[in-house]
């Protein structure tokens, strides 16, 4: 940890970064914080807990106000996937953002069922094995169709319309949100119109979701949102060969034609 703090301090001193978005210890609670060269003493409170905050979502808040600053950001595997996608969508300039990589602990990787619990370059922690687990999707795929419908409707009907899933999502960077369009989803109702509210969000996640699972952690109604979004992520890779969160390459083929503009999806099994 001391080595890590020293590394950040060096980055400050060399002018390579003008701020570092990390986590600070506040009493019992780890909370996000932007460390700056003006207050190097704050680095004493820097911590790397097994708790995840939406770092890239916070980064966007800062970048909107300070588009020219060189910033370092603490990135786990999930954060790095988010940054890759934000670059593709031209929300951040890669040359201004320095990834400071954290490998997740085995505990965290297990509780997140994370398929890539580390970023490309690691500055802290030891790489642990990825967790391959699609049992949540399989469990639903094997249900009879009607049971599947009832299952999702009963899950969606718990929704209290807090918008937490959207608010915490690093990939929800639109200026206007369809979920708030009164013509599409009547405002003022909780639960909101189901399943349209959740399916529209799921569809939006198709080319974007980087499978961090923060949405599900933020859901007061305990709706298995991540399973839903993991499914559309799979559909994207299965039918269109697109995996969001990978570095460089093509953009979301649902939004952009891409260089292979004539690409058509493989055929769907309607059974």
């Amino acid at each position: 940890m001391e080595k890590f703090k020293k590394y950040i301090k060096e980055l400050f001193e060399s002018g390579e970064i003008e701020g570092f978005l990390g986590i600070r210890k506040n009493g019992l609670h780890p909370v996000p914080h932007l460390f700056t060269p003006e207050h190097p003493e704050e680095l004493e409170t820097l911590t790397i807990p097994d708790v995840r905050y939406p770092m890239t979502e916070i980064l966007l808040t800062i970048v909107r106000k300070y588009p020219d600053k060189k910033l370092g950001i603490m990135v786990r595997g999930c954060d790095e996937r988010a940054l890759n996608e934000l670059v593709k969508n031209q929300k951040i300039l890669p040359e201004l953002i320095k990834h400071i990589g954290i490998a997740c602990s085995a505990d965290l990787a297990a509780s997140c069922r994370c398929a890539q619990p580390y970023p490309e370059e690691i500055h802290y922690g030891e790489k642990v094995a990825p967790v391959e687990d699609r049992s949540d999707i399989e469990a639903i795929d094997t249900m009879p169709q009607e049971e599947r419908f009832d299952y999702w409707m009963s899950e969606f009907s718990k929704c209290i319309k807090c918008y937490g899933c959207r608010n915490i999502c690093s990939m929800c960077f639109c200026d206007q949100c369809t979920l708030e369009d009164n013509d599409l989803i009547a405002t003022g109702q909780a639960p909101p119109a189901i399943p349209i509210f959740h399916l529209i969000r799921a569809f939006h996640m198709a080319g974007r979701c980087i499978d961090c699972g923060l949405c599900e952690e933020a859901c007061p109604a305990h709706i298995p949102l991540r399973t839903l979004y993991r499914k559309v992520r799979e559909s994207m890779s299965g039918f269109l060969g697109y995996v969001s969160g990978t570095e460089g390459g093509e953009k979301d083929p649902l939004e952009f034609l891409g260089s292979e503009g004539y690409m058509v999806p493989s055929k769907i099994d309607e059974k």
Partner: protein
Amino acid sequence: MTNSVPEFEDADCILITGSNTTSSHPLIASRIMKAKEKGAKIIVVDPRKMHIASLADIYVAQNLGSDVAWINGLMRIILQEGWENASFIKERTEGFEELKKAVAEYTPEKVEEITGIPKETLKEIAKIYATSEKSSIVYCMGITQHATGTDNVKSLANLAMLTGQIGRPSTGVNPLRGQNNVQGSTDLAAIPNVYPGYQPVTDDAIREKFEKAWGVPLSPDPGLTVVEMINAVEEGKLKGLFVLGENPLVSDPDSNHVEKALDAIDFLVVQDIFMTETARKADVVLPGASFAEKDGTYTGTDRRLQKIRKAVEPPDEAKADWDVLCRVGKAVGGKGFEFASPEEVFREIAEVMPIYHGITYDRIEKEIIHWPCRSEDDPGSPYLHKDGFAKGKGHFTPIGYKPPVELPDKEYPYQLTTGRLPFHYHTGTMTRVSPSLTHEVNEAFIEVHPTNAFEIGVKNSQVVRLTSRRGSVNAKVIITNDVKKGVVFMPFHFAEAAANRLTIAALDPIAKIPEYKVCAVNIEKIEESEA
């Protein structure tokens, strides 16, 4: 609350009545949903079919104001079936025989007649509640805001004691407190009959203790409640009023009456963050700070003390409210208002208040403390009545059913009940200036059963006039099966169509709570030209 919030998750049965939990306490609803996932049975008894009702295993609508009857009915069934907890009754309670006698007349048939709850459903509820290992009762203003509010609460306590569903984790009788710090403001004696920590002003020894602590002689006479003070203004007895962060003109029952009183009063001081309807009538307005602009503590609904922390400065010349009050205290000639920080105030609080005595700012930074916490090595009390009730034995109170004060009649044939929406808060002072919330809903409406809508001759979104004996308001109709026939619901957040112009100021004789949840109204269609 007798128990703490996280405990709900491990209950086997949760009986919810008079609480629109997903709207008013969403993160408690979250725990209840978790409990259901873990296998708990959720029972909702409420006149309105709200979101939480649609998630329940059993939902039933009682007639407005009939709570004592169905609770007595439950107890009669429990006794008949032998589902009571005999050893708990024997060891921990008194007055059981009287209770038994009092509930005997509440046969399922009679209860069905009064409450509209089918007798089979009542029996099912009785069985699940009484025979589950850990059953918890959750209630809110739907139980307390009645002229029989105290009776309703005592009936629920009877039920919990009869079945021994209290004094253990994940059981108990749990009122969900409405405001962020309503528990704390009651603890700190913002009530007329006690000093901080529920120490009666009428008790000589206690009064002497406070006279010593504060260095002045104190009045032995209990003061007036909010509604009584309003009446005292009208009678010319109360001449000056200081209102801190409240908007009685919208929140209090029978608003027309409140408005007259505030117009008539000699001198009104309002300390707030916005120019509320009440502040407009003031003689002096003091600008306070929002929760983001000051330090201090709140006491949550489960008696848990938590800090709020200053994030930014108050705007312009506005000041943190504790600072303003210290200045007011000194200005009116008070002694002992030289505090440099909220922490210093808290130290004095802990000194005079036994139930907070062991609590310090340092401790609540590091641990979760629920009062009572009587010394620095006392870990506090997540749930109450573990080894017995505070007042010795738990006392059963025999209670009979009394109908609501104002029943529907020819002139006012519908029953109005009021409540909250998930998107707004109380009188809307804060939520109605919040764009994300007003985007969801920003006008009053009235929920009407389809049969009644047909009678009145209105369609969805048409405007009607609601009239009670006290006033009238206009609102848009929403036709829904969520309300029973004959009952209409209106949220009370909207000052321009304030539900409380209609409500009745009939008070519970003990708790002095107004009967917000039932009054009689008439509904008329407004012709196009009028609307």
